[in-house]
């Protein structure tokens, strides 16, 4: 680093200052970085939407209208199995990203198929839980608490459903078009989406299921 560079642009903000152009050879960020950043912004906005649903749930958790509360309804074992499934799917999704990085189709398909199975197992358990609750008279119209619960968990479930569809699409695209640069970027976005869903599930099982057992 030369003295001229530090005085002109100490924080390396500009790209076209003379000393900087001489010093930095990388130029503007690559498409992959820009795409990842843009999708990250979308994910953060999605997380903010979930924060609104979490706030709704936390405000309404006591509004049971004389009906069943969290303690009577939630099965912690079910939530535990769902968590294991989603965490495993996050790991296999990482493996799929690594396989895509080295263009290994077999491992990519295997890891994506495993991710898909874990995701669908999660969805099956979540659907079963919802139908059980409705059958026991604890549907979303029973109380404000249950409305908030079904909104929050259902919204996460819809995201997982969309993720499974996207996952299958990515497998088909790799099959049809191979590991092209644009396909790689889509795989990157899918991986970000899937891992973000797991982060939201961490918040969900903690604040809904575990807190429901404690308080």
């Amino acid at each position, binding site marked *: 680093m030369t003295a001229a560079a530090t005085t002109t642009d100490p924080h390396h903000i500009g790209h076209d200052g003379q000393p900087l152009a001489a010093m930095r050879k990388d130029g503007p960020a690559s498409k992959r970085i820009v795409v990842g950043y843009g999708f990250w912004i979308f994910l953060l906005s999605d997380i903010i939407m979930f924060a*609104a649903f979490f706030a709704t749930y936390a405000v309404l958790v006591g509004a049971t209208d004389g009906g069943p509360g969290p303690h009577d309804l939630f099965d912690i074992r079910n939530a535990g199995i769902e968590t294991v499934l989603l965490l495993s799917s*996050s790991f296999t999704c*990482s493996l799929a990203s690594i396989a895509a990085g080295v263009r290994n189709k077999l491992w990519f398909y295997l890891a994506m198929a495993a991710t898909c199975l874990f995701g669908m197992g999660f969805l099956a358990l979540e659907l079963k839980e919802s139908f059980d609750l409705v059958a026991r008279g604890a549907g979303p119209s029973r109380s404000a608490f249950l409305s908030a619960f079904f909104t929050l968990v259902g919204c996460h479930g819809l995201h997982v459903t969309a993720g499974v569809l996207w996952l299958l699409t990515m497998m088909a695209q790799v099959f049809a078009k191979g590991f092209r640069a644009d396909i*790689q970027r889509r795989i990157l976005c899918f991986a970000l989406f899937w891992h973000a869903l797991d982060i939201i599930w*961490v918040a969900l099982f903690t604040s809904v299921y575990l807190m429901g057992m404690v308080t």
Partner: protein
Amino acid sequence: MTEVGGDTREVAPGEADADGGSVKRDVGVALIGLMLAALLTATSFYLVGSDLVWAPSIPVALVVLAVAQMGVHLVFFLHLTSGPDNTNNVMALAFGVLIVLLLFGGSLWIMGHLNHNMMPMDRTMQMQH
């Protein structure tokens, strides 16, 4: 690697280093993430059913464990780093966390005060007649 101009070399969140020789290391990173996340999850679920810690402190412990696990996911699965390529992502995350805290904390705060200050329901009913 025939990719255009080292495009895949740079690291964005969620991206595994596209360097062929580092597969082992990348799988190792994912494995460490999986182990840490599983450990934190197991601790959370265990705490709820046990009397290992003082009962009123369990909610706080659960929140701490959840935040830690989110950090693990961000670092090991989304590959958020402190590197120069990730500065923008980290700044966006910081802003996102600020908004989430304002939204969540603010809602609870306001609604708590509203509930506290509201007249009890039976007296509201009496006044309507």
